[in-house]
């Protein structure tokens, strides 16, 4: 894996954006950021030549029962460095800016997160379910997920609400 980032750059970031906190103790530095600064921070990380994070290596989201955490892993090909950006979202109504504005190649991954975790992305070009059928209502990767009952009638797949666990 990549080498450490210089702490002073991270401190500069912290001054620039109010909600940024960082943790350089991890093998890859973690940056924690609020939803309001996320897009600006990402743009900065991509465009500023001292960072040059030109690849979004991995986007994912984790359901921690109290909140949903978006995990962005950036990789800089020029400096062979890694940074992990984490962003906590409200579990009831998770909304976050779409990264397709910075890295267009994240379109499908964000659609997948929308599909399976139920996170809504603002300014996404085509936010629809991608893996599950269009009319599926639950979010499978959430921890309290109860599968819907499938039923095919007249050649059309329908999803029935699960029977209550009594």
């Amino acid at each position, binding site marked *: 894996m990549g080498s450490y980032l210089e702490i002073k750059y991270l401190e500069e970031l912290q001054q620039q954006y109010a909600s940024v906190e960082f943790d350089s103790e991890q093998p890859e530095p973690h940056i924690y950021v609020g939803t309001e600064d996320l897009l600006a921070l990402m743009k900065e990380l991509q465009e500023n030549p001292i960072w040059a994070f030109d690849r979004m*290596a991995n986007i994912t989201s984790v359901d921690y029962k109290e909140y949903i955490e978006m995990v962005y892993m950036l990789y800089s090909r020029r400096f062979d460095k890694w940074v*992990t950006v984490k962003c906590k979202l409200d579990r009831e109504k998770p909304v976050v800016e779409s990264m397709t504005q910075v890295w267009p190649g994240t379109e499908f*991954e964000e659609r997948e997160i929308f599909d399976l975790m139920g996170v809504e992305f603002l300014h996404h070009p085509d936010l629809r379910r991608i893996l599950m059928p269009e009319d599926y209502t639950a979010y499978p990767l959430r921890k309290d997920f109860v599968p819907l009952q499938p039923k095919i009638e007249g050649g059309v797949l329908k999803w029935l609400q699960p029977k209550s666990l009594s």
Partner: protein
Amino acid sequence: MATTEKFVLNMGPQHPSTHGVLQVQVELDGENIVGAKPVMGYLHRGIEKLMESRTYQQCVPFTDRLDYVSSMNNNLGFCMAVEKLAGIEVPERAQYIRTICCELNRIASHHVFIGSLTNDLGSATGMIYAFRDREKILDLFNIICGARMTCHYIRIGGVIADAQDEFLQKTEEFINYVPEMLDEYDRLFTGNEIFQKRMQGTSIISKEDALRFGMSGPNIRASGWDYDIRKIDKYGIYGKLDFDIPVGKTGDNWDRYIIRLQEIVESAKIIRQCLDNMPEGPFMAKVPKMLKPPKGDAYHRVENTRGELGFYIVSDGTNKPYRVHIRRPSFINLQALDHMCKGMVLADAVTAFATIDPLMGEVDC
């Protein structure tokens, strides 16, 4: 000026050229493609969710079924991510065996690529020849672990069984056969005029576009980036080995095909070095039966046949992963499909499906 009506041709989910259950809605103007929209999810099995209810060891067989033609590479990715999380040191002999198996599987996977590409181009003979040579590799897997496709051979901490002398000897025989095999492919299709004419200059992905779409693997290398995780991260023993990364120039279908042929040669080179330097010793580290990695998360990526395969694992300190996310290369590569098909004719769309080489088990997960 005469105008013609556009119409949407629905290819798939059952279509002979869509490599499984990919559905592509192709918008046609005559035979020219205006847009191609991939629709997937027909093989979505919920592996990420299923892994949350299995122990770490039980998760490994699922990775076989992700990219089912290069299962060893998937095993490797997951096992290395868990090893990173739990801090397990893998013995050196195991690493060598792993590398041999992964590279063999890379060749086998490229055989499937060549086979399906030539089949889609209308030459069923090419497919049969590629599958004939693939059988030789499957035989090797059969010797080493008893399975042909879904091997489950690489386990957390090493490999499940030692490599027998028979395996090593037959692997060497296969490596000696590789130049002859490629020579035959050259005569049968690489040198064929029709084949070249159909591949060259079609479905070009430029250098910038390849990066923009987040592509990886042979697809991004065909566009001119020397982006290979084996060289960059030097995971396992790849740092000690001497091999090149074939890089294309234009990023057309032809480059994507030639790069895979060259990768077969490079893989053979790697296997030969591993065979020559194979150390003695244990093939499995001491891993507790009930593996409980410490709290935290880890991301590890390996160079799968189709690109950058990453596993992101969150552990909550129990014997089951709290969350597993898989960064699947063909899923992300598929974003380029619309761009590749635009402006081409219908026959080229089929070539584009084949050269981007999506595997629906991996795309849909």
